[in-house]
């Protein structure tokens, strides 16, 4: 294909990017630096230092961080088991594991709600067994369960791809040089799969940090993440300027995370950053 043809073919995408990315972003930035009356102000950006907002931001970071760690702790052993298993078609196992991803996201969160609510399935069984009820619903733990359940496939896929791509002879070479299982794991397997873990963190941490639907459903509206605050500014308080200001602040944090986890990715020269 010549240059001209490529340029012609790119027109729809350019229109898409301008119409659905650039212009909306400019609107958000414009709202963020103005007051509802239209005067220029930095107040919407500084608003993050307000104790309520700050608390929400730190909680967002904390829950996103815990979810990412839990996703790594679940994904990595799965990847190692699949790597060492003699099953021929590992893709089928993987397919089964990520199958829930194909269901509606809200539906999955509602299902979790049904399971862990006060009169939910888990408590029902516990009472049948004569054990006391547990109350996780409307806690931070409930939100973490929801986030991990929802975003696990995004960690599992890149981690598994990376772990499966490590050649057998590298592992054999390290054993040959005297490495025991622990050394193989810490000196060979984990360093060689950092790029997958980095991609996974980006893909779990970022959506977890901006999350508000899971917090709404599993947190019972009592736990405010920064995403919930922003949502309320837009839909309840109708202060779009403050909402935009907080969104821009959140974007900066997301960008920082991406850069940090992106560095691990580029260092090992594999994988990708979104």
């Amino acid at each position: 294909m010549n240059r001209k043809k490529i340029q012609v073919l790119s027109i729809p995408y350019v229109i898409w990017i301008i119409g659905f990315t650039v212009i909306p972003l400019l609107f958000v930035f414009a709202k963020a630096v103005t007051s509802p009356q239209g005067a220029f102000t930095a107040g919407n950006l500084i608003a993050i230092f307000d104790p309520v907002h700050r608390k929400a931001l730190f909680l967002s970071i904390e829950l996103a961080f815990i979810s990412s760690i839990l996703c790594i702790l679940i994904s990595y052993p799965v990847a190692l088991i699949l790597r060492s298993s003699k099953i021929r078609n590992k893709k089928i196992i993987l397919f089964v594991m990520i199958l829930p991803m194909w269901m509606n996201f809200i539906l999955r969160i509602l299902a979790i709600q049904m399971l862990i609510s006060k009169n939910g399935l888990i408590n029902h069984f516990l009472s049948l067994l004569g054990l006391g009820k547990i109350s996780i619903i409307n806690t931070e733990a409930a939100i973490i369960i929801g986030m991990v359940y929802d975003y696990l496939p995004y960690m599992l896929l890149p981690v598994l791809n990376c772990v499966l791509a490590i050649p057998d002879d590298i592992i054999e070479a390290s054993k040959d040089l005297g490495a025991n299982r622990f050394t193989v794991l810490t000196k060979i397997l984990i360093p060689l799969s950092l790029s997958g873990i980095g991609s996974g963190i980006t893909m779990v941490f970022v959506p977890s940090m901006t999350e508000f639907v899971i917090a709404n459903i599993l947190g019972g509206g009592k736990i405010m993440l920064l995403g919930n605050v922003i949502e309320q500014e837009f839909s309840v308080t109708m202060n779009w300027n403050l909402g935009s200001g907080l969104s821009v602040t959140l974007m900066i944090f997301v960008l920082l995370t991406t850069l940090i986890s992106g560095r691990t990715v580029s260092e090992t020269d594999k994988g990708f950053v979104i």
Partner: protein
Amino acid sequence: MSKKLIELKNISKSFGSTLVLDELNLYIRENEFVTLLGPSGCGKTTILRIIGGFETPDVGSVFFDGEDITKLPPNQRQLNTVFQKYALFSHMTVADNIAFGLRIKKKSSSYIEEKIKYALDLVNLPGYENRMPDSLSGGQQQRIAIARAIVNEPKVLLLDEPLGALDLKLRQEMQYELIRLKNELGITFIYVTHDQEEALTMSDTIVVMNQGYIQQIGTPESIYNEPTNAFVADFIGESNIIDGIMLKDRLVQIGGVSFECVDTGFGINEPVDVVIRPEDVELKDPEGGMTTGTVTSIIFKGVHYEIQVESAIGINFMVQTTQNFPIGCHVGISVIPDNFQIMHKPQSEDEEIMSAEDYSAGNAV
């Protein structure tokens, strides 16, 4: 003779329903350069992996220095492996790759530094400490892999077709390097290859294998000059393998013509395989030969010409000579008695793949 360092006793191994090794016996002496040679699928790599501890034999035991190590995991064995595809740790520098085994053994950092320098000098790559493996050529990577293995001062170095991925020129250079290393280090090399030239160049002892059985064990000269069966003759170098009848001691009949040879003990009128190496067939004037023939093709191979001669006795000879004989040229053919190699014909398919014991006794390593 030096002592036996590694002994494989009665080893059998199957993968699924495929029998790869069948009751194999082999021993390797200290400071030997032993090459396991055979076509792909003959079981040579499996033997190496069993010695290295990466496979466990179904039956039989492995002895190292008199000790049974059959069940010992690879990280506890006193040997190191150089892998076919180098298997360098791509996330570590050359120095860290070489230091890997030493750090596990908790050697002091000054010792490790000294060893890295020594190993890099040994493989002719001084100053490469801080390079990443990806930035090196295939030959350099393989030399780093060798350095990484030898700094651990193993008693045995296992090499699994280490030169297979290199081009011809580099492969020849590396062959000399390996011989030099073996002489300098005085450790036992067990080398796996399907390349007969590589085996002949480097080895003290060659173990020729086919379909899980040892065919012949011997020095490069004895394997080349006195192959024990048609497989070995054909696999080691080019051969004319001809049907013949051993009329009596020192007289073999090929295509109705009798030739003098030096072999004895085959009985009277016994059908045999006769091997004549292409470089042992002499072409001369039609009058001077033992039989005559016509040149049907000639190919220039660099050092020599490869000539096909259709002989009067109905046999097509392959001849290697530095002289040029044009196509259609009428020539005399002669072979001196020493160069007829007489072998028993296999009685059946089974006998074609001979069992190990038949040879390990006769051609003691």
